[in-house]
């Protein structure tokens, strides 16, 4: 397994894990309407910023660990296969994000609360990263 493939799996697990926790812990706020829109925005904003920071720090730590575990692989430049896998992942991730962006624009047009629009955009970014990661995983395993 190449460094790029391991890196992809690490990012997939991290993003999936952190945002599964985020959406599970805010589901009652986002769907139930148990708090006021202002409180919901404040609550989700704080968690959102914490999760972004957590993913950045965890990904740096994971990549350092991967590089220490196999230093020769970490120094290898991306080859033609890596680039193809990457592009296909970016392509499919982009489509998913565009769909969520459309939903977010529709929400803004219909004057939905800020926190709902913000979480739709965040869900789009997360979903596109997950689709990108899974597409890359399939690309590495089955070929492009």
């Amino acid at each position: 397994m190449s460094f790029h493939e391991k890196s992809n799996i690490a990012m997939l697990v991290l993003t999936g894990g952190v945002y599964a926790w985020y959406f599970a812990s805010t589901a009652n706020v986002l769907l139930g309407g148990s708090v006021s829109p202002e409180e919901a925005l404040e609550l989700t904003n704080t968690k959102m910023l914490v999760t972004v920071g957590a993913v950045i720090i965890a990904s740096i730590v994971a990549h350092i660990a991967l590089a220490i575990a196999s230093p020769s692989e970490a120094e290898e430049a991306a080859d033609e296969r890596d680039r193809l896998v990457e592009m296909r992942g970016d392509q499919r991730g982009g489509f998913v994000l565009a769909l969520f962006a459309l939903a977010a624009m529709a929400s803004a047009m219909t004057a939905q609360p800020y926190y709902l629009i913000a979480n739709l955009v965040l869900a789009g970014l997360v979903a596109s990263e997950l689709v990108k990661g899974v597409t890359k995983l399939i690309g590495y395993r089955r070929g492009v």
Partner: protein
Amino acid sequence: MPGFLEKMNRSAAIGTILALGWYLIRVVPQVVTHPLDEVSWKAEMVIAVVIFVVTLIADSIRAAIASQGQLDEADVVDDERDHAAERRGDAWGGHAMHAAAFIALMLLVFELDPFWAANTLFVGAMLAGLTSILVKFLTYRGSI
């Protein structure tokens, strides 16, 4: 001689430029002269999407009629070069869309009016489309 999909790419470029141009001409002067809640942008956004779709369909039909002989001769619509251009263009467009979505998310987190987030997503999506088209064009020309 450009292939059919390259001509479709040009149709998408014309549609995007017309739609985005029309939208900006209609909305930007209002943003400068009116308070934000008096700016009319929702209908303009829908009309811009209609302009894009109608232009894309009309110019694609025109290109299909003009390329009929070429399509019959080749017996295929897309080849490996088309796939490469498509993948690379969409991947770059996806990166641009990610940037726009992240900016929109930050605008919402910092509680700016949803007008700004919706317009960042809309203009960002149009610019991401143009980025994708430009990268596809350059790939067809062999520049990248």
